[in-house]
């Protein structure tokens, strides 16, 4: 009988981690539905970005208040998790505070955890106030209705509860309080429990301990369904982020080959393709998630829905439908839908839907000025613009569905080398004009 708690603990741990692993494997499978990309270049720059942007949170502090609070929560989250190690060992072996034998160093550790827990609690409450009372504009855009809105708050409640449980667990641990080693915050919480019989305290302590670890496991499994997945994916995502100048858009290699053929009078356009020649892709641009690259799909899972991109987007600022955050959320939603389709049918069965039109409208795509403000603003190196561009390519090259005025401009470029209807032979006339 005495091993029942240990066994229950191990079952919870295995179930929690197991279900999480299952879902992460789904994420990986879904990302692999995208096109392969070679990202073996710029290795040192990529690592530097991981240190600066992901670990160092350099983009977060562009907005100082939320940046500062986020750093507290982030540091707190990482450091307090050291404590989880002790909880797991205690849970499996039925020990109690196995590391307390470290003496004053243990006190130092727990002391830091307690201070951080308090700071995290305060930060999270401020975050909640910013979202729900001050109603910061970017959290109240049209794409933030329903689940995304609840998701943002659920995470905050999770964190509040976990931090409170951690402090209560320490406060009601009689032997820990008697040790008086590291209980810098919990001793004040403990005073709230003064007069409570020791037996009751023990029950509260055990309850808090169990709820704390079960809460952490639940939180871990919540990630997959949430924008909070970024706490893991931000690191690889930043690694794979754009490392060339933002103005440099990809040149489509398949097009290059065709244009070269068209321009080279020595190549016989009807000749059979050379042995080993790369085959032209079946499709130009993107109309669904499978046409996007794996990095773009990773981007979609990483998006924190913070809205910094949308807040800087000139189209969105002036009331247009385009929101770069929505581009990322739509991509993830569609990818999840495709994933569920595969779960159900064993392979993807055409569902008559696609990313274009069913999720992202043409009106949104054509409103983009390609200004890169969204790319610059994103704290985790997401590139919504690249998705917009590839969808435009699909519209123009596969469907000839550009807005009429753009077709006029493009015809002009084709015929007279300028987007306006001027003759190329007049290109130097300015020289002699007064």
């Amino acid at each position, binding site marked *: 009988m005495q091993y029942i708690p240990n066994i229950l603990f191990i079952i919870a741990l295995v179930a929690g981690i197991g279900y999480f692993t299952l879902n992460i494997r789904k994420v990986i499978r879904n990302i692999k539905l995208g096109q392969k990309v070679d990202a073996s270049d710029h290795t040192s720059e990529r690592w530097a970005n991981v240190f600066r942007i992901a670990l160092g949170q350099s983009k977060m502090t562009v907005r100082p208040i939320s940046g500062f609070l986020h750093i507290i929560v982030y540091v707190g989250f990482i450091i307090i998790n050291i404590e989880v190690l002790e909880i797991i060992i205690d849970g499996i072996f039925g020990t109690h505070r196995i590391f307390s034998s470290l003496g004053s160093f243990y006190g130092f550790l727990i002391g830091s955890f307690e201070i951080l827990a308090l700071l995290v609690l305060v930060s999270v409450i401020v975050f909640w106030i910013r979202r729900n009372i001050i109603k910061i504009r970017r959290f109240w855009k049209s794409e933030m209705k329903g689940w995304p809105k609840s998701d943002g708050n659920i995470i905050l409640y999770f964190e509040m509860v976990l931090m409170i449980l951690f402090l209560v667990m320490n406060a009601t641990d009689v032997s820990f309080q008697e040790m008086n080693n590291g209980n810098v915050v919990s001793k004040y919480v403990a005073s709230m429990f003064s007069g409570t019989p020791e037996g009751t305290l023990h029950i509260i302590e055990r309850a808090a301990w169990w709820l704390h670890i079960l809460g952490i496991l639940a939180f871990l499994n919540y990630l997959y369904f949430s924008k909070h997945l970024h706490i893991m994916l931000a690191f690889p995502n930043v690694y794979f982020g754009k490392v060339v100048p933002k103005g440099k858009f990809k040149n489509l290699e398949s097009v290059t080959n065709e244009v070269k053929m068209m321009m080279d009078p020595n190549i016989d356009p009807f000749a059979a393709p050379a042995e080993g020649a790369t085959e032209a892709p079946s499709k130009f641009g993107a109309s669904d998630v499978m046409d996007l690259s794996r990095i773009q799909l990773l981007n979609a899972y990483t998006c924190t829905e913070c809205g910094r991109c949308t807040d800087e987007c000139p189209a969105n600022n002036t009331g247009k*439908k385009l929101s770069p955050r929505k581009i990322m959320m739509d991509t993830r939603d569609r990818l999840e839908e495709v994933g569920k389709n595969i779960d159900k049918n064993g392979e993807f069965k055409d569902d008559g839907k696609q990313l274009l039109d069913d999720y992202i409208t043409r009106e949104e795509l054509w409103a983009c000025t390609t200004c890169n403000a969204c790319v610059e603003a994103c704290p985790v190196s997401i590139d919504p613009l690249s998705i917009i561009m590839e969808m435009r390519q699909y519209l123009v090259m596969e469907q000839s569905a550009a807005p009429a005025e753009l077709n006029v401009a493009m015809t002009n470029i084709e015929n007279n080398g300028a987007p306006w209807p001027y003759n190329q032979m007049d290109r130097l006339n300015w020289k002699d004009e007064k």
Partner: protein
Amino acid sequence: MTEQIKVPTMAEYAAQGKQPEVLFFVGCAGSFDDRAKKITKAFVKLLNKANIDFAVLGTEEGCNGDPAKRAGNEFLFQMQAMTNIEVLNGYGIKRIVTTCPHCFNTLKNEYPELGGNYEVMHHTQFLKSLLKEGRLKVEGGKFKGKKITFHDPCYLGRANNEYEAPRELLEKLEMELVEMKRNKKRGMCCGAGGAQMFKEPEAGDQDVNVLRTEQALETSSEIIATGCPFCMVMMTDGVKAKNAEDNVQVMDVAEMIASAEDL
């Protein structure tokens, strides 16, 4: 303003078997848009003044392809790019300067993979280097002490990380630079990029250029400076929309230097 400007073409240089120090890629706006042509001429005057051995492609130049590419027409872009590259490589061009950040960005970043490798500079970078080498001198003159704000063109700033060259030139004019709230990395687009210049905007509650102009007017500057012919058109229209033509002028940095020198 009476002095004739000298604009030699590459064909002329080649006929004499000579190479210019730099090729000036004028661009479509700089060649055809009435307002942008003034920027082109102002820049040429500065080149003449500094005795720079330069040439233009003239009728052999074609659109760099940026609007086509950003509208999604990769075919048309690459056709334009390869046609230009053929001409440029045929003349053995090594260095290029442009007055348009879109030409600058495309030539610098997107041409190399297609076989066009050049040292490409925006005119503000080029002018900065002339000042540094002492080939051109700039003094405050009539702009001294005036309030000015600088609108960062997206394709110079965020796209290529050049925020300082235009500002250093303005500093030389001894003006009081007042930054807009959204500047440099966080500067807001004028609304022209991504081929928006050539189409009507989507429905919304305001035009992008008007919002950006409002931000510029908030600085109560006498001059809105920029370094892009498209920003020029957008901001000029914005100023008109706000009925502020009498209080504020939109100028390219090159025009300001030329005008300070009474060219």
